[in-house]
């Protein structure tokens, strides 16, 4: 393990009671923070302090705390999921910060994700996009033997890379247009790369993009901010594949 040392930090946090209420930054001091702690363990410490003073704790989304469930969010010092690459906020550790540093913590800020309280936002729009077509239309029980269709390792691996999206929403939060294209394209690509999903690929692309537009997400103008901030390194080439499927669907109309 790395060498443990201790920090004092000032945490400047966005506090907002509800979706319609006005929010503001508040700064709290946390002392004697071990560099071995995760960022959330520092937040837990801060919340314990607040509760002990009979103040309400800071609300933030988290669950697995190991980078896979996609529940955690947060803009930390101006970057989604904080100041380390290819990780989620829950994987961020305090050794990445300096003693006496002021750490700014904000919720995802995007029209698609309204704030519920403090740092917690509503990402149900992502579920609605998936409902529009993020599946293969087969019923349980009717499947043939799993090895009946061979799939090249290259395609399977690429599909896996696309499928590794955790639905966190960092791509939307990072995008100046608030576009959900990286998220949508990850799912469309995964299926388009596999024979089981190919059949409906074009229809799926069209349905999911239409739903995304309906829900008020912006357009993609290729700024690539999404790719840079995605904790799972989902590639922007997925968007190109999505566009191809989308054009196919339009031509078929």
């Amino acid at each position: 393990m790395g060498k443990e040392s201790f920090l004092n930090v000032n945490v400047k946090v966005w506090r907002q009671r509800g979706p319609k209420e006005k929010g503001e930054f508040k700064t709290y001091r946390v002392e004697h923070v071990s560099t071995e702690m995760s960022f959330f363990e520092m937040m837990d410490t801060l919340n314990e302090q607040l509760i002990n003073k009979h103040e309400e704790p800071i609300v933030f989304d988290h669950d697995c705390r190991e980078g896979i469930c996609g529940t955690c969010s947060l803009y930390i010092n101006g970057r989604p999921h904080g100041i380390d690459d290819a990780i989620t906020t829950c994987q961020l550790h305090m050794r990445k910060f300096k003693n006496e540093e002021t750490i700014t913590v904000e919720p995802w800020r995007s029209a698609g994700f309204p704030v519920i309280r403090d740092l917690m936002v509503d990402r149900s729009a992502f579920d609605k996009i998936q409902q529009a077509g993020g599946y293969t239309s087969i019923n349980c029980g009717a499947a043939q033997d799993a090895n009946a269709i061979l799939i090249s390792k290259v395609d399977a691996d690429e599909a896996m890379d696309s499928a590794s999206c955790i639905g966190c929403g960092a791509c939307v939060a990072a995008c100046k247009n608030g576009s959900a294209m990286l998220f949508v394209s990850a799912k469309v690509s995964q299926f388009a790369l596999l024979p089981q999903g190919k059949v409906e690929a074009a229809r799926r692309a069209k349905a999911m993009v239409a739903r995304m537009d309906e829900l008020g997400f912006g357009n993609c103008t290729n700024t690539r901010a999404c790719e840079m901030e995605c904790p799972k390194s989902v590639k922007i080439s997925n968007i190109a594949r999505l566009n191809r499927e989308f054009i196919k669907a339009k031509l078929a109309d």
Partner: protein
Amino acid sequence: MAIEHIMDPALSRIPEGKLADKWTNYKAHQKLVNPANKRKLDIIVVGSGLAGGAAAATLGEMGFKVKCFCIQDSPRRAHSIAAQGGINAAKNYQNDGDSVYRLFYDTIKGGDYRAREANVYRLAEVSNNIIDQCVAQGVPFAREYGGTLANRSFGGAQVSRTFYAKGQTGQQLLLGAYSSLNRQIEKGNVTMYARREMLDVVLIKDKEGVERARGIICRNLVTGQLERYSAHAVVVATGGYGNAYFLSTNAMSCNGGAAIQIYHKGAMFANPCYAQIHPTCIPVHGDIQSKLTLMSESLRNDGRIWVPKKLEDAKRLQRGEIRGHQIPEEDRDYYLERRYPAFGNLVPRDVASRAAKERCDKGFGVNSTGLAVFLDFSDAIKRLGKDVVADKYGNLFQMYQKITDDNPYETPMMIYPAIHYTMGGIWVDYELMTTVKGLFCAGEANFSDHGANRLGASALMQGLADGYFVLPYTLQNYLADQIQVPRFSTDLPEFKEAEDGVRAKIEKIMAVQGSRTVDSIHKELGHIMWEHVGMGRTKAGLEEGLKKLGELRKTFWKEVYVPGEANSLNTELDKAIRLLDFIEVGELMARDALHREESCGGHFREEHQTEEGEAKRDDKNFMYVGCWKYMGEGKEPELYKEMLDYQEIKVQTRNYKS
């Protein structure tokens, strides 16, 4: 000592016939519901993990009207998402001698002969359908260059039957179930209720006076309001209760609440003491630690576990004077390979965990706390090359490095056992129905298939088996008798009464206004559990643990402080409600562990071991499922024994040595 009863064997509802024919016979003779009637029948599924998500999707596909609930903001985030290593199936694609029978046999043996034969056989039987179903959904399992599916090995098996998707198998399987669920939501067959927590089940008497599960009371975690939902049947698929220990590999919201609520309403709680301690987790670093991270069992395919042979080397490691890779080969003790030559590093989890504890207790631990052993990849890297190792385990290595700031390609990983999974859970019959009519339980929340110890990659298999391939048949069989029953209004007095009960409990918690945070009490619970109901249990320790748990409950009611309001978003209240149920889970675990005077699987009683320190079962007195029946607040629960009758398998001492 608790009052004991022998359970009527008929209660288990195991179909007649030869073991291999039971499930086929059941399906051939079960009752069906026609499509027009299905539309008139509502089913509540609590939980959207592999078990709940798969069940809700499939029941929706069949045409039932399903309401599905989860705590997270989206069903895609259920704790199943975190499973890393893989899922077992008896496909025998590797032609290494696997079969349905062998998977069945390995599961019974791995569970230390404490699971029900008929259920386990069915599990092995449907395992192959699961893989077919998932591939059809577009789950990107790992493949060979020839295009066929790849497999790896997991503990407790000598065949390679584990299917995987990088180190993210649970994620991919759950996203598969989620996609099927989404299709049904879009079609209007499933209504999804996210950020809801079930806080009680509602029972209503039918015309014959039989109580049946007809609804639930939920707390809306965003508004804090209590909500009522009704249905013709209720499925509880709410996962395991490992977080009773505070520190575990489970996600933060995993809980034992729903299980305790239905236990209070008459569902029996079976084998609560069987908890799995996983041998390969990242060691604890300090008091403020909030959870433990698993390093997948798949790592034991290529990683070798060792500690130094010499005590002085261990001391120098503990003081940080040297690092693992500096210790020469001849001074390393690969203790699993030494003690268990036949299975080596791939012994089952309970065996590997105890062996690590044994070495550390003797002073051979390798980190500053003395509570860690090495998991070393240097041989694998030499043999296969860094690229191959990275391809197989890259994301796990990255995860390890992010947490510990150590590079496992260069120096061995440090690991230690941690609470991971609970084999115990709500008792269910062959149809996965609890002792309450119309109340079903699936996935990790039930007790069914893993006996006293679960083999790696078998929980995903069981969750999906229950959800995709068992409940859709058995629920239909139950509902076939309910087609005349109209939909229920939530204005019925039974709903009001249940809601009032929940509200009273919440008000009581809010009213304490003590001086301790919920987490501080939960941590104390965790310490009690780990010390007294952990890896090595004794009569005296368990008795003391039970006493401490009783005191902790009093502490809760005197000293807990929950800020904010009940009728609003309140994350501290969410946790306080769960904590109260964890204390009760803890008591049940300790009570069960105390009564089970033997060692089996994940339950190790120090009084019952062989001279070599292996677990010593007592089949004569304990070959049963221990089911606890709630008798009312403050009263001792009573024990019902479901005797296990092995017809197919010869019961033996587990042997992983030769």
